[in-house]
């Protein structure tokens, strides 16, 4: 399994976390995994929606206190 790229999007407000994730995945190979950590509760809607729209796979979503962490795998297409 490939390494996970970590992205820190804490304190960023939507849609910046989505933009950070999008720009990171654009540089990755198909199947690459990125974990992004956010604090804006809006990401609970936006990141899953962005993954569905663009055919990426949301592998995990974990919320602890005010932090939300998403593990996303880039589409194979």
């Amino acid at each position, binding site marked *: 399994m490939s390494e996970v790229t970590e992205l820190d999007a804490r*304190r960023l*407000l*939507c*849609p*910046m976390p*989505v*933009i950070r994730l*999008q*720009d990171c995945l654009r540089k990755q190979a198909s199947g690459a995994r990125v974990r992004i950590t956010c604090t*804006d*509760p*809006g990401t*609970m*809607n*936006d990141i899953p*929606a*962005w993954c*569905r*729209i*663009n*055919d990426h796979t949301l592998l995990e979503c974990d919320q602890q206190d005010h932090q939300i962490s998403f593990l996303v795998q880039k589409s194979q297409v």
Partner: protein
Amino acid sequence: MSKKAVALISGGLDSMLAARLIQQQGVQVEGINFYTGFCVEGHTHAIRKQDRNKNKRNNALWVAEQLGIKLQIIDIVEEYKDVVINPKHGYGANLNPCLDCKIFMVGKALEWIKDFEYDFIITGEVIGQRPMSQRKATMPVVARESGADDLLLRPLCAKNLAPTLPEREGWIDREKLMSITGRSRKPQMALAKEFGFVDYAQPAGGCCFLTDKSYSVKLQDLWNHRGTRKYELDDIMLLKVGRHIRPNQAFKLIIAREEGETNFLSGYQREFQTIKTVSHAGPIALVEGEQLDAQQLELACAITARFSQGRDADSVELLFSDHGQNTQSIHVKPMPAEQIKADWVLA
């Protein structure tokens, strides 16, 4: 071979309808959405505690999902500064450079279609919908000055405009496009019903802080006191939060209005001088401006204490901190409401 179009998706109804009209003609549509830093809803809802339970969906993403199209959100914060600071066509009622904004965004879309081999651009513009950017006279200005020319198709009002390349080449059947004009929303609502769209955001335009009078006053004040019309992303974020009070030329206070704003502003303690009430429940205040001297510090504390639960107390204790360091305790009598002059309050 089927043609490909890029749709500017704002998250409002018009761009949603425009994209669907073109999808129905067998064109592959993908969406782009531009983030300028001045967008309204997501930020306010994320910050204010009273709004935390409101729906926080990003409308552009939501629209893309309804349409079944891919969407890229593009960060244009840096490039957009020149549009805000030096709009060739001037401002609207406030600091909204709507016509320059539209020209800029269509120009960015043109770059996108060239880079990724799309055939044309779609927008949800309607003639007469907006007093500055969506008039019959400005439609050709947007097409010409963006460089898009006849690669720019406005499906909702196309029949009122000269045929564009996609229409002339037969990629699109002009007869199936619309001829909507004016500010009435009835034609769009009827079309939404026809397409089965029952849930959609309110009309576009209200989504930009630059159209807001109070926000524009604060941005103009920021420029005036810096002596330069420049800003960073944090500046324009902070203009959306709290009460902004400038008691003199030396400094401005940004005072949280509720717990969510206090939490948000607390994240800036290393970047600002800050004041926080400790003897009574109350807000945090950021001090923007010069290093406070003793007299200014007392004034800043008295104003901040005014917005705490100790507003009627004889003395309130506050903690002053200089960029997260050198914390000191201050005791002041809260300033009576009538002494906070109306022209101190930026709104």
